[in-house]
């Protein structure tokens, strides 16, 4: 009796209608989960952007549209009751750009050379070096920041004992810290591009009379250049946005934009923070999209 029943159920389970239902259900479920994921990711950001246009000084209540918070970023001067001056903002931005620019240039050159070496040379234990390449990407920022701090204070101590010169944390130390983590990102991006490059093209150039240097300049470099540029843009964004590592390697007078924003929050939460964050978001997004477009090319 029960056996027969089970058999019947199994038969029903195998029916094409049920299969269709399961498929529909799975598809619908997948859509729902995707939607929830997207909401989770982007709702806070949407709130941030929306409230940067809020006329109220309190984040919680919507009181109408205004551009005054954006305006205040450019016009605040000392003694007008504002928590910040636009001069401070410009200085922080300038520091960020200096750090980002220099760290990007150094990290791009070193990262590209590392990528070429890893892709072109065969040596023993190569996998180990490849693993090390990913370490700065997976390592927690806080670990990286603290280790850099420990490293710098140790290095400064030794330098002071040897030469009597006393060094302090400042922009150069931030730059060194940013180079340290950016090399990995550049190398990984450039390597993906080199892997796509057919080595026969380089052989063809040599076959036609180009030595290694000219082959690199005329064939290899132009062909991997989109990858290099893409890696550089990625490094620049990461550098602009970095807070944790900068926090540990920054000294007095070397405030970058993220550090400055953090300082503002500690004083008072004003929608001006939303405005400045929105601008940073747009800038980063623009650079990252450019970088992605270059990778596709």
């Amino acid at each position, binding site marked *: 009796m029960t056996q027969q029943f089970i058999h019947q159920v199994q038969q029903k389970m195998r029916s094409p209608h049920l299969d269709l239902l399961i498929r529909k259900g799975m598809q619908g479920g997948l859509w729902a989960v995707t939607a929830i994921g997207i909401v989770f990711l982007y709702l806070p950001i949407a709130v941030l952007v929306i409230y940067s246009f809020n006329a109220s000084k309190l984040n919680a209540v919507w009181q109408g549209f205004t551009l005054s918070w954006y305006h205040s970023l450019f016009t605040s001067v000392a003694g007008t009751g504002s928590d910040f001056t636009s001069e401070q903002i410009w200085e922080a931005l300038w520091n960020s750009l200096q750090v980002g620019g220099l760290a990007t240039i150094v990290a791009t050159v070193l990262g590209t050379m590392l990528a070429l070496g890893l892709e072109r040379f065969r040596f023993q234990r190569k996998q180990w070096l490849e693993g090390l390449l990913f370490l700065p990407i997976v390592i927690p920022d806080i670990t990286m920041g603290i280790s850099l701090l420990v490293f710098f204070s140790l290095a400064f101590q030794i330098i002071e004992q040897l030469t009597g010169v006393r060094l302090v944390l400042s922009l150069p130390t931030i730059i060194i810290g940013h180079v340290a983590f950016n090399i990995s990102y550049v190398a990984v991006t450039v390597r993906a591009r080199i892997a796509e490059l057919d080595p026969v093209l380089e052989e063809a*150039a040599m076959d036609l009379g180009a030595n290694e240097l000219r082959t690199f300049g005329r064939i290899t470099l132009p*062909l991997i250049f989109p990858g290099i540029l893409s890696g550089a843009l990625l490094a620049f964004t990461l550098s602009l946005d970095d807070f944790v590592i900068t926090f540990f390697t920054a000294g007095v007078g070397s405030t970058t934009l993220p550090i400055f924003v953090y300082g503002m929050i500690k004083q008072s939460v004003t929608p001006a923070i939303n405005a400045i964050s929105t601008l940073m978001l747009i800038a980063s997004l623009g650079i990252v999209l450019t970088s992605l477009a270059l990778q596709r090319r």
Partner: protein
Amino acid sequence: MTAIELVNVSKVFLGEQQREVRAVDHVDLAIQTGEFFSLLGSSGCGKTTILRMIAGFELPTEGEVLLNGEPMGDRPPFHRPINTVFQNYALFPHLTVAQNVAFGLEMEGVSKAELHARVLELLALVQLKGFEKRRPHQLSGGQQQRVALARALVKKPQVLLFDEPLGALDLKLRKEMQLELKHMQQQLGITFIYVTHDQEEALTMSDRLAVLSAGQVQQVGTPSEIYEQPNCRFVADFIGESNFLVGQVIEQEAAGIIVLVDGELPIAIPGYTDLPIGKVVTLVIRPEKITAHRQTPTDEAGLLGKIQEIVYLGMNTRLIVQLTAQSQLIVRQQNVKRIISPMFEVGEQIRLRINPDNFQVLLEGTLRTSVQKTSKLRR
């Protein structure tokens, strides 16, 4: 004069898990100036590796490559007056057609005016006038092939290397390009070394060719020498279709020998009188060199066999005929007349006639006769 010579050249690669792969195994070759020379062999037999050692991309593990009698040693590719047309053309994707062709001249430091003139001249030669500004991806396979050719020819190389250059083209275009390349080679008088796995291509284009197998040269010769006088079973089997009959020399006469095939069928072969009695040999005969005939009571000439299979192929008919207990012969009968009703039937006993001069005798083979048959022979 010898353009390229390989003296006892071997190449050993370190493959997976440090295992040694002998890609080229003690190869000796002498390629004459102005010759169209092909390297023919199946995939993985070492053709590309030989070409890369001539071009200078790989250095021999042993032996020496010579150009015009001069040892190349470890001279890099950019110091050898040799150019290559690569398997998938290897055109520079970021340069235009004209820039691709000009690349080799730029490296020589040729003046702007001369460079321009030479590029136009070469593009005209390969019938690509007006395509100067295009990028490689905007060209068809055949056009890319021509750019690759122009790019190599502009260097006026002494030797031009081709690695399966037509492999990616469709059949019709391939045939056209074969003719064109052959004409170009005859006009320019440049030594061509041409790698292919396509035997028809090698036979139709080459002045001479080398048949390779497992990194070794099996035979070097003109296309007709390779086809008509294969020096080993591998070559006979690899080039076209061959029948093999293994037998033992049982008699020597003034004019020739008698070989007993499979211990039961005696076949008289002219010549080879120096072969000792008891020597095991393989007789090679091409299917088109056998004629099949109806049995008649009066006509006793030829070998008797029973038809196993008949396949009509339009231009000819392919018969498989059981000759001895162990051996079958493939026969290709030219359909010189229209075949309205079948000439033969499966199962029919027919006579096969072979001019004994058409047998190629190879001094190799293993007898397949059973113990029983051998003892019968002794009696």
